[in-house]
């Protein structure tokens, strides 16, 4: 019996490490779960893209829920998610607000001209300070903010049609259930 002990220990270790590998494949190693979920969105006051004199604040977006999509003309993945944004996400019927993150306004406007503009409104965060308040660490990132200005959901990385079905729709269903 005690001769078999090393074997048991070895098998237990195999189980432990195997669990570790399985666990890591189940979770996106790159994603940080935002501590801002179900908390009020941070206050911001940012100029509109192309109209630097027009400032948009958190207060002016209250009332109806909206998606806040963090993008930049420098962001490669943003090109990949762009068709999904103008297609599947747009068809969900919510306002789509773009947060142009750490970008030159002229580059951003060219980018939107080239690829098409799915946004109802684009605000600019040139130095990335508003991004820090939102816990943004790269683009693209997408927030769902409800009519009361509370962050309800966040997606890190490019949006795919699967993400829309698996995550966006349930998040929206939860919103409309409480009449938000």
């Amino acid at each position, binding site marked *: 019996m005690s001769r078999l002990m090393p074997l048991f220990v070895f098998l237990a270790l195999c189980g432990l490490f195997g669990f570790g590998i399985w666990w890591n494949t189940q979770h996106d190693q790159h994603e940080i779960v935002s501590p801002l979920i179900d908390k009020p969105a941070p206050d911001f006051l940012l100029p509109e893209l192309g109209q630097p004199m027009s400032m948009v604040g958190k207060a002016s977006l209250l009332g109806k829920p909206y998606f806040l999509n963090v993008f930049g003309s420098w962001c490669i993945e943003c090109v990949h998610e762009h068709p999904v944004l103008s297609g599947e996400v747009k068809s969900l019927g919510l306002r789509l607000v773009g947060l142009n993150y750490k970008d030159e306004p002229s580059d951003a406007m060219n980018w939107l001209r080239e690829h098409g503009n799915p946004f109802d409104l684009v605000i600019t965060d040139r130095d990335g300070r508003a991004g*820090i308040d939102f816990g943004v660490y790269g683009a693209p990132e997408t927030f769902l903010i409800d009519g009361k200005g509370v962050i309800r959901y966040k997606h890190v990385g490019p949006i795919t049609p699967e993400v829309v079905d698996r995550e966006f729709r349930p998040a929206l269903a939860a919103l409309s259930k409480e009449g938000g």
Partner: protein
Amino acid sequence: MIFMLLLPLLSIAQAIQPLPFRDHAEELRFQHLSAELRCPMCQNETLADSNAPIAHDLRRQIFEMMQAGRSDAEIKAYLVDRYSDFVLYKPPVEPKTWLLWFGPLIVLALGGLVVAIQVRRRARQNPVGNMPANDTEDDW
């Protein structure tokens, strides 16, 4: 040749813009603090080491908060509020992290227990002065 070797160093020096520290003590405090914080983008680099844009922005933020007279704890809390405990290389001790903090101690204690039991059992099997002549068999 020597120039070629120095080239990478040069690019690093250019990439990390110097911050206007008031004195050496402030610079040391900044370096210490940014080495304790993890870059959210690059996963396994400190804010001090990382070249990612977000690390640059967060270093600037830390610097400005230091200039504004905020304490290290306040600066850390500011970052944790936005980026979660992930940014701390030293996670707080709370029920969720007990296993992380005390797990190694438990394993050590279990190992000690196993050794103690083995030693005792052998002592009982082979009382002093009655050692078998041929003890080549290693009994686990």
